């Protein structure tokens, strides 16, 4: 495979916290490794490219809470295709509150329950006036994943396929030690912002899943930035 296709879902809403950095980093790294990259940006109400075409990385970032409700309705149209992608397709990386899309429902501060895709048993609750900031370290396989969270919601309930075991910081909610979902090709996490540039090792692992012939390449400062952050966070 020498060409990699990255699709970003709804970037007009799902780019709040430097989340664009994930795609930029993938592109930079993959180009350095000799790949040709195509980036597709899909707007809300347009049919996503992955429905009928090969897409290697599908990225969906965090959005404002009121927009989340609109997006869910749109994504429900493609529920079978999304399920199929998780089981047999390419990578799906969901960050920030996009993690909640795959659960049962989202409860708004007014008490309304918005039905989600219902792939997993957990559910989310939004809070209106408080923001939750966190810097965390979570373990996936043998990789420590560092990053930031800026949230107006937490998740509760059963989560049989967690992505991260938290070493520091909050999980699905402040009392939880697990976070996100890893199910086959789906990597969903509450981490917001540039999780990939912050975690070069994890990014290499993702690329390796997308193309097993990939040999890891590094940017000049990525490792130093990562190691310094990890050390400070675990101190």
């Amino acid at each position, binding site marked *: 495979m020498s060409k990699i296709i990255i699709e970003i879902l709804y970037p007009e*809403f799902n780019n709040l916290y*430097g989340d664009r950095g994930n795609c930029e980093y993938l592109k930079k790294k993959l180009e350095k490794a000799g790949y040709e990259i195509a980036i597709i940006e899909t707007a*809300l*109400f347009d049919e996503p490219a992955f429905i009928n075409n090969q897409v290697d990385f599908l990225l969906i970032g965090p959005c404002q809470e009121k927009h989340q409700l*609109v997006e869910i309705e749109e994504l429900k149209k493609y529920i079978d295709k999304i399920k199929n992608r998780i089981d047999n397709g390419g990578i799906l990386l969901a960050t920030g509150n996009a993690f909640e899309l795959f659960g049962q429902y989202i409860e708004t501060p007014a008490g309304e329950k918005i039905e989600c895709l219902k792939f997993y048993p957990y559910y989310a609750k939004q809070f209106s006036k408080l*923001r939750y*900031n966190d810097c965390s370290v979570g373990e996936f396989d043998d990789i420590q994943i560092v990053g930031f969270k800026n949230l107006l919601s937490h998740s509760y309930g059963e989560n049989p396929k967690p992505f991260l075991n938290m070493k520091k910081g909050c999980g699905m909610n402040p009392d939880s030690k697990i976070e996100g979902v890893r199910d086959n090709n789906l990597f969903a996490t509450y981490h917001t912002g*540039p999780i990939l*540039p912050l975690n070069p090792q994890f990014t290499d692992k993702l690329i390796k899943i997308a193309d097993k012939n990939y040999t890891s390449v590094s940017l000049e400062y990525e490792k130093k930035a990562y190691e310094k952050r990890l050390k400070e966070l675990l101190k």
Partner: protein
Amino acid sequence: MSKLRFLMAIIVGKISAFLLQKIFKRGTNTPGAIMLKICPDTLSYFIMPETIICITGTNGKTGTSNLLTHIIQNSGKTVVNNSKGSNMDTGLASALVTKCTLDGKITADVAILEVDERSSQYIYTKFVPNYILCTNLFRDSIKRNGHSGFIFDKINDYLNEKTTLVLNGNDGISGLLGEDVCERVFFSVNKTEKSTDSCVDTVCDLIACPKCHHKLDYEFYHYNHIGVPFCTHCGFKMPESSFFASDVDFNKGTFVFNDNRGEKLVLPFQKGNFFNVFNITGACAVCRLMDIDIDIIANSIEDLSSKTGRFQENEYNDIKVISMLSKNQNPISCSQSFKYLSSTDDEKDVVLLITDSKDKKHGHEDISWLYDTDFKPLNMESVNTIYIGGSRCFDVANCLEIKGINTSKIVLFENYDELAIEISEKNVTGRNIIIYFELYATNIVKKIKKAMSQKEDK
């Protein structure tokens, strides 16, 4: 009982303000903080002047407040403002206590108060401003402000129907404040020679229609999402502006202010600072709503225009050192100041002290905003070396590489002092030094300048 607490708070506030002024020679939030401890409802007990103007928004609050104060003072009115303290409730209380009688009556004619967006609920519920001027709403520091929708709600939920809102008609986010609640007056800036058909900045905070969520069109963009948005799907567009700036001349640094009565004024603005046009237009709009004479406005702006704010220029041994304050963790402010690099072809070295050295005190520093920042101007050929200082220098360098900046230009210093020495020793005649710094790095800028001037003395 509460009134008694308030009177106690006034006395304690006045004494502490007096003492702190003697000791530190400046205003602080401490008097206000103490007052709110004694009487949590302090702000609602002040007998406020007839006119209260609050200024809020992501960018341009301070510039606009200072300008308004200046014009209104020139019109012969006395003003109380919080320019020396913070823009939160404690800062407001600190400012008000210095200009009130012992029973809490404000002795100035007008209160001009800069208000932090997130403090709205602690302020607009305590007294009713006659005017709230909102400059704009953008993404801002992530930890403090979350996203622009969160901040919008923080303001919108606490507006009083008796307040007149003065809003930026080029901003499809803040321009929706107070819909169906308040009287709303708009100001805007007409298309200029620098307007673009598509958004050329790294981030645009309003791509989809705020009403129907379909993709918005723009007649043109001034910068980021500031422009003239409209929706072909549902027909959404911004209300008409009764005050507007036209004929912006970037070479001369002038524009024409047009008011709601057909009057026109040619006004100067700080060259290279287009934000300034919005600030002046907004401030003038409020003044005209208050019936301040148009000639007084014109003269006040003339004599302010020479003063510069966050931009400083010094020269040592023929080396020009320009320092520009970039607001902490604010990608819009940073991106806009980088645009200055593209305005000259002079050879230059750039120093980046932009990560927030104080943020780590609130846990670990969040650097996500770097990815929303437009670093393209750093790629210019006339930029020789890029010095990056501070403990997060590897993150900045990594982001620069991802954004396509040539890493051979980059030099890193985790330690600020070593950076100061390196710059003062390695500088090359004929090359300017441009320093971008965040608020808490002010000292290191002073150090660099001091080292350079000492070298000059030798």
